[in-house]
């Protein structure tokens, strides 16, 4: 009778371990994933900063400046120039919004005043690079999905006003401004109908 009782208790710790392991792994993987997202976020800050530097530097045309900024983002955050549509670390984060490549955006509006000035201004020092990416927070199906977020996490996010609670959308911005390109200078001087100083 005693032996039978002990036999029935076999596996109890295993069952309890399995039950607690679910929650335990949920927490562990959550913080692991969160640390990976934070580390990747720092890397994206560096990438956008370098991209903004490339955009800042003068060049033949504004298009050339944008292309240089795009090249930096592709080299740092995408697989390669031939695979610019694929993220380098898709298990951590994927670029969203923007285009060519996904997540990348050059803010050339130069008009960030509030209320908006009239006439609108286009200030070269208010231009920069933005990269938006989305990461998964819970590796286990712990947080459900499809629940609208009450916060602003859908800032420049899905675009449909809702966001899965299981994901985190972050935006890295670097606004270093833009030096006038040679083409801008030529255009400006052409308006003045003459050559001033040494030209461009």
């Amino acid at each position: 009778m005693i032996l039978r009782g002990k036999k029935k208790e076999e596996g109890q710790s295993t069952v309890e371990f399995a039950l607690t392991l679910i929650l335990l792994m949920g927490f562990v993987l959550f913080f692991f994933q969160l640390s990976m997202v934070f580390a990747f976020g720092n890397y994206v800050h560096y990438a956008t900063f370098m991209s903004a530097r490339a955009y800042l530097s003068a060049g033949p045309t504004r298009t050339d400046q944008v292309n240089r900024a795009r090249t930096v983002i592709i080299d740092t955050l995408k697989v390669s120039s031939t695979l610019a549509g694929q993220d380098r670390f898709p298990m951590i984060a994927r670029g969203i919004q923007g285009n060519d490549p996904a997540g990348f955006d050059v803010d050339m509006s130069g008009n960030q005043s509030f209320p908006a000035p009239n006439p609108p201004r286009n200030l070269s020092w208010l231009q920069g690079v933005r990269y938006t990416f989305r990461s998964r927070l819970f590796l286990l199906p712990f947080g459900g999905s499809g629940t609208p977020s009450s916060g602003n996490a859908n800032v420049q996010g899905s675009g449909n006003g809702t966001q899965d609670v299981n994901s985190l959308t972050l935006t890295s911005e670097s606004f270093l401004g833009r030096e006038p390109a040679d083409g801008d200078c030529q255009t400006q001087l052409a308006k003045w109908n003459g050559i001033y100083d040494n030209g461009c």
Partner: protein
Amino acid sequence: MVNRPRGNEEGQAITEYVLMIAIVVTFYLTTVGFLNQFGFAQQLASPIQNSFARAYQYGKPDVYGFENGGPKDHPRITSPGNNRLFINPIKQ
């Protein structure tokens, strides 16, 4: 009784295993259901999705941009209520 044929006991372990798995899965689904019902995941992720997201984007957790009801304390906006420097900000 002691020498009962072993054949009758075949499958007992796997049956118990299946029953136990059913209990474990049911318990798991019930727990996750309760956590979702009380918004546990939302509460856990809210500081990250809100404060941290704004601190990451703007450098300060209580900044609001154009896209979320702002601007408020926006670093690139020069108007009352916004500032370009986060050093010793003045509450308004």
